[in-house]
């Protein structure tokens, strides 16, 4: 019997009686991070990393939730659990599970490079490593974050010079804060979509330095927008939300921007390849550093990435959770 098994409710640890990022309501859920496909409403009890708790509470409202600092051991029915930085977004964690000398790590979503606001990824040694594969093909390789922000700042400055408003899109939890933390505030004024600013507030309260920005409200005068930067979720671009802003340039920050032809790029004027997931090199590095001999591949190019690992000598399998 495997220590962790894939059930229709999600990743399950029978020995402890808990689920990791369950899809359906359960009694006890260990949550890797606050994104909606990992942190769902309706469980009786929640456990997460300390830094992840404020956002999860903000998103799910009144829930019964406990948290532990990174690295601290929690024992449930004799199974030892601990949360370790995953570098994906603020508070994101890999969950280490140890029982009778066997160690598994469920990595959730992760990236191996340091982004300046989330606690950097820490490799955790284990026997079985459960990895995502969102970008698990060799065509996905990220250039350095500094280079991408040079591009973003240059784009903003050029739009400003042309009298345009820059709208930069990224998911309101994670990507939006990463953008805010690294755009150059000397170029102009920074605004945020309400969904973004709501998350900002929660994260600022944790003492993580997210620069101040002005929430876009109906009271914001259109005349003051040209030259400024607005951070917004991608869903806002397709809506009537952008219409009143006059002449705009829309930028999209996502790993998918590495490709010329993709859905979002058609919506946006400019794409920036910036992801909170590991690229091809990052995934390989994480697998190697885990020193695991068995790897279970979820989320993304599961078949291709597990085949690649098998050819490299791992005991690997791909599992589609959706």
């Amino acid at each position, binding site marked *: 019997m495997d220590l962790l098994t894939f059930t229709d409710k999600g990743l399950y640890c029978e020995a402890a009686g808990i689920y990791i990022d369950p899809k359906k309501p359960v009694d006890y859920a260990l949550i890797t991070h606050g994104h909606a496909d990992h942190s769902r409403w309706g469980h009786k009890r929640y456990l997460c990393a300390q830094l992840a708790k404020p956002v999860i509470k903000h998103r799910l409202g009144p829930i019964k939730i406990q948290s532990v600092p990174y690295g601290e051991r929690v024992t449930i029915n004799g199974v030892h659990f601990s949360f370790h930085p995953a570098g994906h977004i603020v508070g994101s964690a890999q969950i280490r599970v140890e029982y009778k000398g066997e160690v598994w790590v469920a990595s959730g979503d992760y990236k191996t490079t340091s982004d300046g606001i989330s606690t950097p990824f820490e490799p955790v040694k284990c026997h079985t490593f459960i990895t995502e594969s969102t970008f698990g*093909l*060799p*065509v*996905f*390789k990220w*250039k350095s974050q500094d280079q991408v922000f040079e591009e973003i700042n240059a784009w903003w400055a050029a739009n400003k010079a042309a009298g345009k408003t820059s709208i930069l899109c990224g998911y309101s939890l994670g990507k939006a804060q990463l953008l805010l933390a690294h755009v150059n505030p000397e170029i102009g004024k920074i605004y945020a979509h309400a969904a973004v600013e709501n998350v900002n507030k929660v994260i600022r309260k944790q003492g993580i330095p997210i620069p101040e920005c002005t929430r876009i409200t109906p009271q914001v005068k259109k005349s003051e927008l040209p030259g400024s930067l607005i951070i917004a979720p991608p869903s806002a671009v397709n809506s009537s939300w952008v219409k009143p802003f006059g002449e705009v340039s829309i930028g999209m920050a996502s790993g998918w921007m*590495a*490709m*010329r*032809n993709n859905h979002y*790029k058609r919506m946006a004027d400019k794409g920036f390849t910036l992801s909170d997931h590991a690229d091809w090199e990052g995934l390989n590095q994480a697998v190697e550093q885990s020193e695991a001999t068995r790897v279970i591949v979820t989320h993304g*190019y599961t078949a*291709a990435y597990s*085949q*690649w690992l098998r*050819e490299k000598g791992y005991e690997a399998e791909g599992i589609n959770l959706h």
Partner: protein
Amino acid sequence: MKAFTRLYLELDKTSEDSERETALVRYFDQAADPDKLWVIALLSGQRPKRICSISLLREWVEEAAGIPSWLFEEGQKVVGDLAETIALSLPFPVQENSLRLSEWIKLIQRLGNEAETKQKQAILEAWDQLDPPRRFVFNKLISGGFRMDVAPTILTGALALHTGIEGNKIAQRLSANWSPDESSFENLILTEHALEDISRPFPFSLLRLLEGSVSDLGDFSDWMAGYKLGGLRAQLIKRDGEVFLWSEANELITPKFPEFDHLKTLLPDGIVLDGDIIPYKEDWPLPIHELHARISKKKLSRNIMEQVPVIFMVSDLLELDRTDIRSQPLAQRRVKLEAFFHHVSAESLLRLYPLITAENWIELSHKRTNIREKDSIGLTLQKIDAPYPTTDDYFWKAPPFKVYAVLLYAQSSGDLYREFTFAVWNKEALVPFAKANTGLKTEELQQLNSWIKMHITERFGPVRAVKPELVFEIAFDGIFRSKRHKSGLTLLEPRIVSWEKDKDLKEAHRLADLEALIR
């Protein structure tokens, strides 16, 4: 090559003419002359010869990236383009390379004559010096797969803005036979051409669509009415023994219509005619789309010239005996034009648009009703005392054809179903014959959308089949036979006139009714 790559990606991203022109001007303004010349060549379809096959490139990339073949293919499934997949599968470059576009192309051309091992070495080295976007463009260049079609008018317009030289001069200079290997930007673009002064057209008088009532134009006797066939508006110029054809978009289209070369001997010098190039076979105008198909061919074959012959229908005379007569009133120019036709015999190539005689607006309106019997798509109305160009130049469309048809399919764009396919009866079956997306008021469109949502019977991608129940009146400006369409017909500008809520399914027209409309 950074600047060129940026230009390529900008052009690739948009099909908006103005954005493409802006991108080109920005490129030209900062580029060195040899690079500009190559960009002009590449955008007008002259590309370097392929130096090695793309499958060989694939072999090398798998080796350089250390990935198995199947994994490369997985990447290609996601990315699509092979040159791009190669660019993205390789590790990031460790060196820099600041060679310019023209230098890269020289290097690529030299490599064409080298042995495979030399080629491989050079290409691996290049991959290691270029970031993925530049690598992608490089791969396109070496594999002969470079394709970036920019309308000649956009390229001409951008070069005109960049150099300050008139667009039609640039067009004339580009129309010569030239090769980027033998020419220079200075010679090709900046140097006066022998023919350009004699080839120059006059600014076109724009034909405006008449939308209001014809009686608003004033006194009938101030106007001249003429027939109009479906074709391509152009000026035909004969000067110094040469013939030139210019489209309204300021494009020199002489090479597209070698038929008119004969006019070199048939016409006197110093002549400029305004009119339309008409696809015309056995005394019958052909559908306009056949002319478009002929024009879009890169190489003009004997076959297509026989399938789609052309004539030039003349509507106005702008230059006669080397004298610009545009300031003379239209009535005088018309007299001279008719006299000119008395002396010219070139009937197989050149014909005069006849005028329509009428006593008053009412009689003219009446004649318009039957104008399709004369093969016309409508008529022109021009003020008799107007010089050329003038704002008093109108096109009065023939009344549209109208039929009742049944809604069969709906396709959404954005949040609403906006594109609809209509059918007519053929025996007991409904045959789709027209697609239309305009004509409904916002309210009706929303009402129709709610109806559609409740009556979907099948889904094909973005298309929904709906229960055949609703009848609409459909208007269109022309109807032709077409082998490519299920109904055997193709329509010109089909649009919705009205939602016929009182009409029954059985009251829709039959395919035979439509066929009867074809002349």
